């Protein structure tokens, strides 16, 4: 779920997995308890699957073998449907297992194995209706019992899986199989945004008695061979439910933690597609007529995090000054080589209620200096803790340090190894950085900006903000809810602890022969590893 690869200077297969595991947790750890009929709910009843249509030009052809080189991967690679660790793991489980619903390329929830998932009035009970005639890889019909088994497995207190925390309010004993194709999930509290959760990739449906060692799934591909840390081979699932898909006969996922190695493998034709193209290599790929760069706008962000409860950032004027110091255009230009979008100190950019009306913040050194003077913090010296935790993080720190000079602020960049960054002092650094992937506003708050959130790195506890958020979660009327969410964002915009300077694009690359890979807003590479739609021209 991590959008980026380890810094090139820090070699590691396994380090990638560490970041990813953490971000997976972060993606899901918050038991987001919210009520309401968001945009997601609108997708509920629809059984149509617009994303099923093949992308790319011409008519898809059957056959062929796709080899993809993916960042990360280590000896700890897994096929466990519910606890992926790194990028190759995610790619494997997305293609091995299918969930009840999933995010499409526009970050909208679409029904998958489920025909519908509908809440009761309080959003405490959700009724799942499966499609007809679904089959596992071994030919067994997918039934409501399998769905019940899957959710009990994920939330098993003895062996909790990645999304156990997010589903903490699921009443495991009250899960009720209504008939062959219908199951009711019962929650101890209202769970308005369940669909956002269900659509996460680590919630694939597995057969009763599932064992990751014999990974029988419901996805478009079934497993042929698997060598942890190296590669895995998949073949077409002939009874896959989507008409015509998958088009490929065979899929090979190869672990390639190293940037240079991955690019070289693509250039040398050892693989057909790679994720996480280093920005410095974009020109190399573009110069090659047989290769194509695949770029996707995402809602991922790389913030600077200021602790609002510790000096100097406990003074809101210092936070405001720091936000005014940043030249966002320059950040995107130098750090992302232009492959990204300027940010406005707000997250949740694809949220339908994103506060677009707030003016774009721009660099204003004079104002920043004035604010620092008012705060009595002229010629401030701060330490910025950074580390190779995601592409662009160390780079952004350096650009910020340079920009701050103009305002008389000395920023001492302290680069620590990833292990130390996420070590004892993680979430305690006064001034540091982090990375987040696409998420809507309220789920993001539950993850990072309220007391009790697992990653409240700015120690944010603004009473007014929290009141608005709580109110929004209780509010069912979409218009009223939008108003509350926007009001909360205004507070974040005015006095928050983040500096959100931009949203990096996801940049991947593939051969021109490969069709059906399109841009995807979720922040997952290669159209969220949607290889079922891929075909060879």
């Amino acid at each position: 779920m991590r959008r980026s690869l380890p810094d090139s200077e820090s070699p590691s297969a396994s380090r990638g997995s560490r970041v990813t595991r953490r971000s997976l947790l972060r993606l899901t750890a918050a038991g987001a308890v919210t009520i309401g009929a968001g945009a997601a709910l609108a997708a509920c009843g629809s059984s149509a699957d617009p994303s099923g249509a093949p992308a790319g030009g011409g008519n898809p052809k059957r056959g062929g073998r796709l080899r993809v080189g993916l960042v990360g991967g280590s000896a700890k690679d897994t096929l466990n449907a519910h606890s992926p660790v790194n990028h190759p793991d995610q790619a494997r489980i997305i293609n091995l297992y299918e969930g009840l619903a999933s995010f499409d390329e526009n970050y909208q929830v679409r029904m998958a194995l489920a025909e519908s998932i509908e809440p009761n009035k309080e959003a405490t009970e959700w009724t799942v209706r499966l499609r007809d005639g679904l089959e596992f890889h071994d030919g067994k019909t997918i039934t409501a019992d399998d769905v019940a088994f899957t959710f009990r497995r994920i939330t098993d207190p003895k062996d909790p899986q990645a999304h156990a925390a997010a589903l903490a309010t699921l009443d495991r004993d009250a899960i009720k199989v209504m008939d062959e194709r219908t199951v009711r999930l019962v929650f101890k509290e209202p769970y308005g945004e369940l669909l956002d959760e269900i659509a996460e990739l680590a919630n694939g449906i597995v057969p009763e008695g599932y064992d990751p060692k014999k990974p029988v799934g419901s996805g478009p591909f079934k497993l042929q061979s698997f060598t942890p840390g190296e590669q895995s081979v998949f073949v077409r699932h002939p009874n896959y439910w989507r008409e015509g898909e998958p088009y490929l006969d065979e899929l090979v996922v190869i672990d390639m933690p190293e940037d240079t190695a991955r690019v070289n493998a693509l250039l040398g034709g050892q693989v057909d597609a790679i994720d996480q193209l280093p920005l410095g290599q974009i020109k190399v790929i573009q110069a090659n007529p047989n290769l194509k760069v695949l770029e996707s706008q995402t809602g991922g962000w790389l913030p600077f995090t200021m602790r609002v409860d510790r000096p100097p950032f406990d003074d809101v004027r210092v936070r405001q000054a720091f936000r005014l110091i940043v030249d966002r255009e320059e950040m995107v230009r130098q750090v992302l080589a232009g492959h990204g979008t300027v940010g406005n100190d707000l997250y949740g950019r694809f949220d339908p209620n994103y506060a677009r009306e707030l003016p774009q913040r721009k660099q204003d050194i004079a104002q920043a200096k004035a604010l620092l003077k008012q705060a009595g913090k002229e010629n401030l010296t701060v330490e910025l803790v950074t580390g190779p935790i995601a592409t662009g993080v160390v780079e952004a720190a350096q650009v910020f340090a340079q920009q701050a000079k103009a305002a008389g602020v000395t920023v001492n960049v302290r680069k620590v190894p990833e292990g130390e960054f996420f070590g004892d002092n993680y979430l305690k650094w006064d001034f540091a950085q982090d990375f987040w992937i696409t998420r809507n506003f309220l789920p993001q708050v539950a993850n990072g900006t309220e007391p009790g959130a697992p990653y409240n790195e700015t120690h944010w506890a603004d009473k007014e903000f929290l009141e608005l958020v709580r109110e929004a979660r209780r509010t069912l009327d979409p218009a009223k809810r939008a108003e509350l969410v926007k009001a909360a964002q205004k507070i974040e915009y005015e006095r928050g602890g983040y500096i959100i300077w931009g949203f990096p694009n996801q940049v991947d690359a593939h051969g021109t022969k490969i069709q059906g890979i399109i841009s995807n807003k979720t922040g997952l590479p290669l159209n969220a590893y949607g290889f079922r739609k891929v075909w060879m021209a």
Partner: protein
Amino acid sequence: MYRLIFKRVLLGLVILWAVSVVVFLATQALPGDAARAILGRDATPERLAALQAQLHTGDPMLVQYGKWLAGTLTFDLGASLANGLPVGQYLAPRVSNSLVLMMIAAVIATPVALAVGAWSALRRDRAVDHATSLITLVLAALPEFVVGIILVLIFATGWLHVLPAVFAAGEGAVWQYPAQLVLPTLTLVLAVSPYIVRMMRAAMVEVLESEYVQQARLKGLPERTVIWRHAVPNAIGPVAQVIALQLAWLAGGVVVIEFLFRYPGIGLALMDAIGNRDLPVIQALSLLIAGLYIVVNLLADIIGLAANPKVRTAAR
């Protein structure tokens, strides 16, 4: 002489033991709870307890060291913190990959360097000799990563595009990818050869001036026979120690080379482990590299003793 060798071996063992103390002190005896520092934010109580048990951090320092040493001696090196595999199992393929690289480099470098050195001696004070002398002096001065990057710039990315810049093999053994092995091997060869060349040249010059060779010439033996039968074998003896020393150097030299070329050996594993703060792997690799270094140096000593009559008789 055997007593001397015995003494050296004994000394080697003592040094190896001392090295284990240094490695232990450098890694584990740091202030604070090593387990907590390693796990960081993943420090759930269960994992903390498991790691503390693995590292024996609850015990007094001496007991910790004892347990660690006992584990090491029985090849029970613990589990990698990064991937959970037993360290031995994780490192075994990497050790063999590194050995393959070192072997290939040694097998190429030794005869080539000996030939160049001998040739240079035979052409003493001619242009060839001077050129060789200068080139080896330059190569000897260059840090090995500089040599590697220059080779990459020449053969892979900057000028000629004939060789891969990094090792990106898929499945199977490393030697199935000969093209990718070329640059790392060449870098190592260029790193170890200069010393051998210079020693061989010096030894050959001395031998060629010796009465022994003069006599062979006076006897009217063909020059070819003089060189191959008499001069070269006598020159190689003293050089043998230098060759062994160079091979010992490889144990440490591969680290940078593997990092540069992304070659999946012990060097890359060490750099990975450093990035991950994977203590058991760092400990095992430091010990392994130091051990290898000591053993080959010991061999070099013994060869030196055997080859050099002066040393053989000299008491120490």
